[in-house]
């Protein structure tokens, strides 16, 4: 049995999505910007896809949803063009973000810092969420942008986006949210949330990789990140990824249709897995179930290093993740575990399990069994639980 529990990394393409995309590879392969019929025959599907995207996040027709290659591009675009538009030649010099953003936001902000921009990284509490008062206190008349994620990729914790949007609107500050982990998991409504910019990526909600989007509120200026043509109304150059856009539109439609299923069924399976794992002594999960997207668990299993756990799960056909330690080239501990102030001993013990609407009861039962066995095996090896005679002074 192979069980995929890494849906916050990427998701299976829904076969219905794939079916919609197929004609745009070998049949209707024209460039949509060409005048001839080869070009124009893809237009109805592209328009339909745009309708699906606009409906999916409740955008107005006057707003723009610009298709990009991924959310990393969308996030880079907003942050770097805000720099070009309002910081480089303007009187503002300040950006506010959080300590637990995806690197596409975090590293872009770090880059702007190297250019002299002041960046405030709002801290998070032990649940991994920012304090709204900290945000209010951080905004000054020099603040050009607030960029706060809708849901955290590691913990699944939801941020108070509507409140943040209201504050930014009241204080006259532009607000960007990285909604990559929110779309398809909870309702996302750009009007209610008062966002000026919102990033998303198709492959996180059962669409294809290599296509994403940036929502831009009606009339909001943002200089292009890609120059070179008149695509996307001049906002983003590059030949349209026709199959990708068609697939993303369908994926959005299906994801929105499945939100109730997500809230009930995915949540039920997630809770079943979580409750079973929390029966294991010396484990904890970050954040309450209600404050999280319905599919995510970030669990700390004391005494077991994250990559060792992943190894055992992989040996049994289960794909999961740890943002931590040895799994990455930099060998660092899980940054979110550090940001939430978890004990240092636990920073390397994080295991992220993320479900999708394709996860089944049988898969969860199997995963529970495998994880329980892995914990027994790896804790037997672990020095955390190792015997020491009374005279030994532990240096661990």
């Amino acid at each position, binding site marked *: 049995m192979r069980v995929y529990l890494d849906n916050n990394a990427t998701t299976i393409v829904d076969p219905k999505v794939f079916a919609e995309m197929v004609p745009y590879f070998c049949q209707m392969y024209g460039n949509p910007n060409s005048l001839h019929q080869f070009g124009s025959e893809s237009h109805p599907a592209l328009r339909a896809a745009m309708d699906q995207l606009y409906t999916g996040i409740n955008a107005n027709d006057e707003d723009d949803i610009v298709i990009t290659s991924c959310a990393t591009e969308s996030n880079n675009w907003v942050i770097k063009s805000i720099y070009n538009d309002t910081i480089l030649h303007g009187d503002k010099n300040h950006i506010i973000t959080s300590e637990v953003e995806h690197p596409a936001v975090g590293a872009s902000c770090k880059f702007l810092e190297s250019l002299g921009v002041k960046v405030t990284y709002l801290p998070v509490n032990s649940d991994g969420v920012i304090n709204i008062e900290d945000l209010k206190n951080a905004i000054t008349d020099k603040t050009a942008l607030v960029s706060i994620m809708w849901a955290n990729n590691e913990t699944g914790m939801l941020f108070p986006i509507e409140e943040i949007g209201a504050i930014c609107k009241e204080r006259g500050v532009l607000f960007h949210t990285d909604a990559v982990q929110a779309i398809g998991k909870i309702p996302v409504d750009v009007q209610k949330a008062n966002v000026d910019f919102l990033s998303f990526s198709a492959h996180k909600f059962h669409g294809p990789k290599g296509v994403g989007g940036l929502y831009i509120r009606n009339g909001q200026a943002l200089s292009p990140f890609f120059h070179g043509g008149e695509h996307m109304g001049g906002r983003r150059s590059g030949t349209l990824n026709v199959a990708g856009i068609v697939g993303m539109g369908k994926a959005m439609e299906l994801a929105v249709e499945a939100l109730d299923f997500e809230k009930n069924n995915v949540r039920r399976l997630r809770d079943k897995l979580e409750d079973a794992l929390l029966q294991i002594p010396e484990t904890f999960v970050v954040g309450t179930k209600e404050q999280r997207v319905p599919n995510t668990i970030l669990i700390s299993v004391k005494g077991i290093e994250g990559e060792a756990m992943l190894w055992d799960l992989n040996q049994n056909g289960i794909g999961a993740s740890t943002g931590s330690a040895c799994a990455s080239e930099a060998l660092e501990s899980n940054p979110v575990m550090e940001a939430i102030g978890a004990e240092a*001993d636990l920073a390397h013990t994080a295991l992220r399990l993320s479900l999708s609407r394709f996860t089944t009861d049988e898969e969860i039962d199997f995963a529970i069994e495998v994880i329980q066995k892995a914990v027994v095996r790896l804790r037997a090896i672990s020095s955390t639980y190792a015997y020491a005679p009374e005279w030994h002074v532990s240096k661990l």
Partner: protein
Amino acid sequence: MGKNSLIGGSIWEEYSQKVQDLMNNPKNMGELTEEDAKNMGGKLVVADFGAESCGDAVRLYWIVDEATEMIKAAKFKSFGCGTAIASSDTMAELCIGKTVSEAVKITNIDVEKAMRDNPDIPAVPPQKMHCSVMAYDVIKAAAASFKGVDAASFEDEIIVCECARVSLGTIKEVIRLNNLTTVEEITNYTKAGAFCKSCVKPGGHEEKEYYLVDILRDTRAEMEHDRLLAISNAQIEGHSSVNFDDLTVVKKFQQIEAAIDENIRPMLVMDGGNLEILDIKEGDDKVTDVYIRYLGACSGCASSSTGTLFAIESVLQEKLSKNIRILPI
């Protein structure tokens, strides 16, 4: 960079089969107790290294025959990733049957080599080499505990890169001998910094006492200092073993000024003239341009741009360097 670094590979694919097997079934995993020690007629030694907060920790147990100092049994417990488990297991295996003094000579490189399937292919990817370092360190801790000495006493030189076991002395020597100017060159020559990269600069996986960037900077500064010292010593002693072209601009100025004072000015002054050096510039082609201005009678003299000029230039070229060019302004 290059083709292989563009699509991030799975580091798991780079583990040898031996590493994978040991991760799945470590042979020497477990504990040894006082009772085990009594039964085997030896002394129980327990040593720790690392910390969970760093992502790696290991506890090593030995039973040592006190008369012969032979390690009769070794077991380990480890908090860490799979390669940390496999390295610890191999380390314990290598200890068995050795004396304590022999065991402290086991290095992390011995541990890594013992895990290879093919003698020429590393058992683990570069960023995992530090796992075997921990295995090496815990042996020293155990030996220190057994002998009642400090673990540092087993180390007779300062190790900068623990993964590749490269000492401070070696790194400084290759920088000097090969005139290295970048950290990448140091890595190419010594392998230092090629693995977990903690020793390259601050901010890596582990905090270090010495970083390659600092060693390079300091050694380059020492080399520059030595070079200048050699030049000034050569001048004090009055022999011209140092090539004029290698001197600093200031030294060149001093030498040109001295040569003019000795060989040229007396003649010019006799005719009621003189010259001053306005500037010295070094070109890319090793040519040193000396800008001069004639003073007094020389300033209007017809030969100042012909005969006198050639005389000045040839004296300086003969005394100092062929690469001197005089440019009157």
